[in-house]
């Protein structure tokens, strides 16, 4: 199975990269852009057949390493 983990700074945590990207897009002529956030995507294959079990395993990985839950939230997709 393929796991995709999206990690973003939590709402309320200043995302200076997102702000910089947003400002750059404004400068390039897209003033309608709002609330740009920059995150990270981590993909990997997982030797598993049960999606729920795989998700639980990936959640443990997120808590242990992939995300810093003091400042980041994550979303897991299993396919």
């Amino acid at each position, binding site marked *: 199975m393929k796991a995709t983990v999206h990690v973003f700074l939590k709402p309320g945590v200043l995302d200076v*990269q997102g702000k910089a990207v947003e400002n750059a897009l404004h400068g390039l002529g897209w003033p309608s852009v709002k609330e740009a956030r920059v995150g990270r995507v981590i993909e990997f294959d997982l030797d598993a057949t049960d999606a729920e079990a795989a998700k639980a395993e990936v959640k443990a990985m997120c808590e242990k390493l992939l995300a810093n839950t003091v*400042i980041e939230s994550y979303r897991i997709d299993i396919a």
Partner: protein
Amino acid sequence: MRTVLQARAMKAAVVVFPGSNCDRDCKVAIERSAGARVEMVWHQETALPDDLDLIVLPGGFSYGDYLRCGAMAAQSPVMKEVVTAANNGVAVVGICNGFQVLTEVGLLPGALLRNAGLKYVCKPVGLDIVNGQTRFTAGYGEQRQAVMTVGNGEGNYFADEETLDRLEGEGQVVFRYQENPNGSARNIAGIVNKGGNVLGLMPHPDRAFDADLGSEDGAVLFRSIFQSA
């Protein structure tokens, strides 16, 4: 008892991660300011030297700052030993990247975010010594201000309001920036853990141990640790 303690040579370990670049600075700074013996410990080690008075996690870019600053280093084999030693009361100082590692491994609360101004900031900064009663700052005596250099891109201290209130209430905020260089919450430059034996700070005492470097204020911090050991 006292004389026995004083007779024993003070001993420190500096942990070296791949990408550490202030490890040698730390060694020289500790040797020259406190006269202690310093051993370098590679991050793959599964044991620390015996009878340590101090463990230093140095500045740099451990593991190339991959994933998050300090995240990979926090998973290094040696960090298990560092956590055990810290829980046993050994003094631990994390400087800059070392501070990031300490938050990632959970020895200190909060996290270090990208600097609010997005830029890497490298300059001497004025610090207020907020808590002069810790084993890291007792040596400053009546001195309530210090100058050390910061050099970081992600030194913006973050913690939720409740944690910040608790840190302030318990005297765990040790250093504050006089002029905030990176957006740190409540101008925090350095904090200690509840037990008072783990210090994390973004400014570099290892770059401030000799007048020729512009400041000797960092030397006081290292001396203070061994005086209280």
